[in-house]
């Protein structure tokens, strides 16, 4: 679970903000976008979104003067990327008129695009610091995993199934298409489900052994998949960047104009 701590934190933040929002709604109705709470949500959400857009990218480029671990910045990036848009959504007071509505729509699109990007991003093998791994490095790791698998005794009643999922796949970098990349999620879920079913009838020691072996097999398969879809994933990621960045820029330009308009009409023109 440690691997997705930022998701938990984001969920917690969303729950807290939602509680606050629900309380305010119960007391005084839906907080208006121009009210204190509404404005606060909008300003804070926008700042978080701006952080999402800039800080992680800056850190990635700060190779000579790194500050903080890349993994932590990525977690912060994910956290702000989830919570910020949620706050902006609450700021709308569920009214999507004019430019404000366009900004909300763009926000939703960019967030969705971000999730897709993230999915594609993880298809490209990287080190813990985000450095892209080449195919050769992946093959070396596969060799190490196979040696571990050979040394690991298969638990009784699990050997045939394990062998079924551990069958090697095509490891040519250009062998797989987009389906390999987008379909890895459902396959992983199926794999985890199978491991759970097989382990139900085993004793505790055998179940642990099975889990370890299945994890090694999954990792091997993941590596094999990554090798097979490496070129495709890179192309897809490049394509996503081409779409996501202009959308983000359009969003922030529109958001700035919206904030300026709100400031002008709601504050300066008392």
């Amino acid at each position, binding site marked *: 679970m440690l691997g997705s701590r930022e998701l938990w934190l984001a969920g917690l933040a969303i729950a807290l903000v939602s509680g606050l929002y629900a309380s305010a709604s119960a007391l005084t109705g839906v907080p208006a976008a121009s009210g204190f709470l509404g404005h606060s949500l909008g300003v804070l959400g926008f700042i978080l979104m701006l952080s999402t857009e*800039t800080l992680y990218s800056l850190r990635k480029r700060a190779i000579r003067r790194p500050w903080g671990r890349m993994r932590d910045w990525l977690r912060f990036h994910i956290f702000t990327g989830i919570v910020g848009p949620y706050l902006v959504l609450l700021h709308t007071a569920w009214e999507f008129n004019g*430019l404000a509505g366009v900004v909300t729509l763009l926000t939703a699109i960019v967030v969705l695009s971000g999730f897709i990007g993230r999915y594609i991003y993880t298809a490209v093998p990287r080190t813990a610091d985000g450095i892209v791994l080449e195919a050769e490095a992946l093959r070396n790791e596969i060799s190490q995993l196979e040696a571990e698998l050979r040394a690991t005794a298969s638990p009784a009643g699990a050997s045939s199934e394990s062998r079924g999922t551990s069958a090697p796949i095509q490891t040519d970098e250009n062998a797989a298409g987009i389906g390999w990349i987008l379909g890895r999620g459902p396959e992983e879920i199926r794999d985890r489900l199978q491991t759970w079913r097989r382990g139900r009838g085993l004793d505790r020691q055998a179940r642990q052994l099975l889990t370890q072996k299945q994890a090694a097999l999954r990792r091997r398969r993941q590596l094999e998949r990554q090798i097979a879809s490496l070129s495709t994933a890179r192309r897809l990621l490049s394509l996503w960047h081409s779409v996501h960045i202009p959308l983000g820029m359009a969003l922030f330009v529109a958001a700035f104009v919206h904030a300026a308009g709100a400031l002008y009409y709601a504050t300066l023109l*008392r």
Partner: protein
Amino acid sequence: MTRPLGCLSGAGLLAGVLAAVIIAVVGAAGSNAMFSPGDLNATPGQAQVGGISTHSDLSHQCDQCHAAFWDGDRMGDRCLACHQEVAAELAVVSGFHSGFAEPGNCRDCHTEHGGPEAALTLAEISNYPHDRTGFSLRAHAPMAVGGAFRCMDCHPSQLREFSPVSCLGCHDELESGYTQKHLADFGRECLGCHDGVDHYGAAFDHQTLAFRLLGGHQGLGCSACHRGALTVLALQTAPTRCLACHAKDDVHAGRLGQECDTCHTPQTWTDATLDHQLTGFQLEGSHATADCLGCHVDRRWSGIPTDCLGCHKGQDPHAGQFAADCDACHAPTQWSEIHFDHQTSSYPLAGAHLQAACDSCHARGRYVGTPTSCLSCHASDDEHNGQFGQDCSSCHRPTRWSEVTFDHNRSAFPLVGAHLDIACDSCHAGGRYVGTPTSCVNCHASDDKHNGQFGRDCSACHRATRWSDVTFDHNRSGFPLTGAHRSVGCANCHAGGSFSGMPTACSACHSEPQIHQGVFGQDCAACHSTSAWLPASWNGPHTFPMNHGDAGGQCSTCHPSGYSEYTCYGCHKHDPAEIEKKHQEKGIPDFSDCTSCHATGKEDGGGGGNNGGGD
């Protein structure tokens, strides 16, 4: 940095610029309507305002409400430009919007862009600051019939309109009798006095005001004092002076002023407790028990004179000598109690005067203007026949005449010596004191043994003790007594009592002795001193040495019989026989005049004689 941020890539920048352009174009085309947070209200008003019937008619004319910030107008100004009835309310004291609303705070209560049917008033009407209209709802929380008030309960037609009829409906139901009486007393303009805080309602407590209701005031209806008051100001300015309401009750006909409570209490008019001291005339002595009407004749309470004679003029035995100030001498208890102190008067009594009867001096009751000079009473007692004027006290004490304080020594003729012991009439014969001459001779003429030689001032030579006590100093006279003159009796020189004009020459007393043979004249002092006749000294010419033969100045050695002749034989060395023998031997026949040859007393010298010689 290895490569620029994604947003700064060509695609990113292009997208940003494109978005900005699109927004600008859409904004310009739609009059910035894209900034609208929602649709405007589309509910028509009762009448058109500013040429429109709903705000939604201005959906694409943002500047109708949102003036540019450089325009000077606020949004509220734009509101009031159309909603002039509200602007009019802001300009007056009372009204739905007056007291709290102003162009800058329209948005505190009103909103827009909430949709075609959304309410334009954001504020909860129950939170409307009703106090600011001049009528608080504090006392109207529950209705008389129960339940909370609604706006329409008092404002059935319009929120801006109010009729006192709304009050009467509830209050008549709540307390009908009181309401009807109240209406009869104060009319129907409830808001004239009532502000809703219940300051003047059931909770009103007159006792908290400056004019507390006491005694008979407590049972009165409000209108008894506040009749005709239709405003709070009129209630508050109800007169508090007693006579404002009780003029008809004033049996003193206003003569005692306006402050009834000086004597009367709010309980009852009777049992007045007058502190007569407050009138400036404290009742003391007999006055305290006197009948009021004794002074206040015919119930005349004011203007009564406070001076004694105002009432006691007929009883004044002094015939008005002391004006009206009887209490300067008499106590108020009774006339006979007199506290007059003669000592504080201009004529304090002393000595025999203390025992004298008043009328001894104040004959016929005359007190004022009684003369204070002694003779004004004692003229018949003046044995000096007025020689000393009117003021006997300069010599006599007031105890008795014989106690005299006269000090002769402070007079022009201090008594000294024998004068102290003699009787007054020795000098003041016939009782004459003033003008008594002070020269000695005036009394002592018969005693003058000098027969007036020394004038009238005996004291120049005599002390006053006795005649023989003489202070004459002969040395200060023209003939100071020196030497033997000091021991001679006066009569030796002043024979026959003659003192003045006495000659001072020696010869006046001393006749020239035989031995002088008229050689020295009258100037005895040329050779003699006053100590004694001898020794005498001759300072005149003397051709022969005066100390010859150790004569030592003894004149008689050479001049035994007179100074016109001399002899040299008085000395033992000059034996006449021997001298004759020697002169004979030298052939000098005539040797009778020794000095002719012996001018210096030497045997051989000095002389011009022809007899030669030496001794």
